[in-house]
C-alpha cells in the first residue's frame, strides 16, 4: 500500500511532464497532420536553456529567492524555446508543405538528429547537473519505517502544470486565437475564407507547443537535477506514446495519456523490473496502435460530412 501511494505520487509527477510534452505533439498533428519528431529534442533543448538561465541567475546575478529564479528560468526557457521551435517550423517544415506526405516527417527526424548533435557538440556529451533546490519533503504516511514522501519539488511540478494547463485551456477554448487554431484544425481552406492567416496560426501552434515543452523541460531539470543531450529522445517518444494513447489530436487525451504513461512506468518499475520500464511504456504504444488506433479520447477517423 505504501509503495503504491509513493509510486502514485511519483507517477503523477512524471505523467505531468509527459502530458505537457504530449500536448505539443497532439496540437501539431491536429493542425498539419504531421508527427513532429523533433519535439522531444525541443524539450531537451529547453532543459538546457533552463540550465544555462539558472546558472546565470544563481552564480552571476546572485538571485537567492528560489521562487523568483524558478519563475525567471521558466519564462526564459519558454521564450527561447518558442523562438527555436518557430524557426524550425519556418526553415524545415513550411517549405515542404504541399510536398508529399512523408517529406515533413523526414525533415522532422533530421531536425531531431541535428538538435541532439548540436547540443552534444556545444554542451558536451556528459550529464549536466544543476545545484539542487526545493529539497524538503513532506512525509505523507509512515509504516514500519517506510516513509511515503511528497517532495516540495513534486508539489511545484503539480502546481506549475495545473496553472499552465488552465491558462492553455483558456487560450484554446475562449480566445479568438484558440478559435482560429481550432478552425484551421478542422478546415484550413474555410478558415482562410473567413480571414484566418493559416500560416501564422500554424506558427502559433508550434510556439504554444514549444512553450509547454519548455515548461516540461524546466520541471524535468529541476526534478532530476541533470540533463544530457540524449534526454530528448526517450521522454519525447514516451510523450508521443501518451498522445497516441490519449487519441492523437485530442488535447485532454494528451494529458490523460501522459498521466497514464507516467503511472504505468513508475508502477512497472516498482512491482516488476525497473530495467524494463521503457519496454512497458512502448508496449502500450504498440497495443494502442493495434487495438485502439483512435486512442482513448480520440475521435474515429470516419466523420459525417
Amino acid at each position, binding site marked *: 500500500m505504501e509503495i503504491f501511494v509513493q509510486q502514485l505520487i511519483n507517477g503523477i509527477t512524471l505523467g505531468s511532464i509527459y502530458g505537457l510534452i504530449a500536448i505539443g505533439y497532439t496540437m501539431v498533428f491536429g493542425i498539419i497532420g504531421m508527427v513532429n519528431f523533433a519535439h522531444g529534442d525541443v524539450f531537451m533543448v529547453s532543459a538546457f536553456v533552463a540550465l544555462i538561465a539558472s546558472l546565470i541567475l544563481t552564480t552571476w546575478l546572485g538571485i537567492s529567492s528560489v521562487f523568483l529564479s524558478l519563475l525567471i528560468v521558466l519564462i526564459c526557457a519558454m521564450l527561447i524555446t518558442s523562438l527555436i521551435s518557430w524557426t524550425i517550423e519556418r526553415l524545415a517544415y513550411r517549405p515542404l508543405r504541399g510536398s508529399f506526405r512523408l517529406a515533413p516527417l523526414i525533415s522532422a527526424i533530421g531536425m531531431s538528429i541535428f538538435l541532439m548533435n548540436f547540443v552534444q557538440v556545444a554542451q558536451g556529451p556528459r550529464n549536466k547537473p544543476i545545484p539542487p533546490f526545493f529539497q524538503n519533503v513532506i512525509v505523507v504516511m509512515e509504516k514500519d519505517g517506510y516513509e511515503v514522501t511528497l517532495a516540495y519539488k513534486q508539489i511545484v511540478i503539480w502546481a506549475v502544470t495545473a496553472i499552465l494547463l488552465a491558462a492553455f485551456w483558456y487560450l484554446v477554448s475562449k480566445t*479568438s486565437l484558440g*478559435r*482560429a487554431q481550432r478552425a484551421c484544425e*478542422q*478546415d484550413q481552406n474555410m478558415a482562410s*475564407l*473567413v*480571414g484566418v492567416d493559416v500560416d501564422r496560426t500554424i506558427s502559433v501552434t508550434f510556439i504554444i507547443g514549444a512553450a509547454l515543452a519548455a515548461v516540461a523541460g524546466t520541471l524535468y531539470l529541476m526534478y532530476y537535477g541533470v540533463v544530457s543531450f540524449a534526454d530528448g529522445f526517450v521522454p519525447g517518444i514516451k510523450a508521443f506514446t501518451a498522445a497516441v494513447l490519449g487519441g492523437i489530436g485530442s488535447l485532454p487525451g494528451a494529458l490523460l495519456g501522459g498521466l497514464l504513461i507516467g503511472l504505468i512506468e513508475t508502477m512497472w518499475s516498482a512491482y516488476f523490473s525497473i530495467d524494463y520500464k521503457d519496454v512497458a511504456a512502448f508496449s502500450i504504444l504498440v497495443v494502442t496502435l493495434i487495438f485502439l488506433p483512435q486512442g482513448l479520447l480520440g475521435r474515429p477517423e470516419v466523420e*459525417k460530412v
Partner: protein
Amino acid sequence: MTQPLLAVRGVKTYYGNIIALHGVDIEVNEGEIVTLIGANGAGKSTLMMTIFGNPRAREGQIVFEGRDITQMPTHEIARMKIAQAPEGRRIFSRMTVMENLQMGAAVADPAHFEEDLARVLELFPRLNERISQRGGTLSGGEQQMLSIARALMARPRLLLLDEPSLGLAPLIARQIFDIIAELNKRTKLTVLLVEQNAFHALKLAHRGYVMVNGQITLSGSGKELLQRPEIRAAYLEGGRQDA
C-alpha cells in the same frame, strides 16, 4: 459609368494541367444581385474559389473596389470584406454555432459584434435555438443558414453564395432566397449567387451569366435570360424535352 465592385477579366484557372476556366469575364456592380447559372462541372464553384485565390487564376485579372486582388493571399482577400458561403456549406462541425459565427466575424470590427449577432439571429431564428450546439449536429438546412449567417457576420461588401438551395426542401430554399432578396433590398448587400436552381436564381437576380464548360456563353438581365428559349430548354424545362 462607375467602376464595378468586382470585375473578373479574362480569368483562366487550371487544376494541374486541366483547364477549368477558359477566360471568364464577369462584373458585379454595387447593390446588385448577380447570378451565375450552369450545369454541374461548368466551373461555377471554381470561379467562386478563384475570386478568393484558391485555386489562383493563372491568367487574367480580378479587381475588387479598384484593387487588383489576383495575387493576394486568401485571408487578405477575406479581409477586403468579401465573404463566401461556399459549396458544401463547410461549417466548422466541431465548433458551436456561436463559435462559427464568431469565426465569421473574425474580419469585422469587434465593436459591432453584438449588433451583427442580433441581426443574423433575427434573420435565422433557428440558429438562436441551436446557439450552443455543435455545428455538425445541425440539419442540412440549418447548416446552410449557419453558413450564410457566418458570411454575414463579416459585414461583407460582397457576398458569394454557392448553391444555397442545394439539398434543401423547397420551402426552406424559398426562405433562403427570400432572405437574400430582403437583405439586398434593405441593406444594399451585393450578392454573387451560383445556382443550379436557375428559375429561382434568375427571378431573384438583377443580372445573370450562363456558364458552359468554363466559359460565359450568355449574359443579360434576369428577366431577359428567363425568356430566352435556349435557357428555358437547357435549364428550366431541359430533361423533359429530351425524354
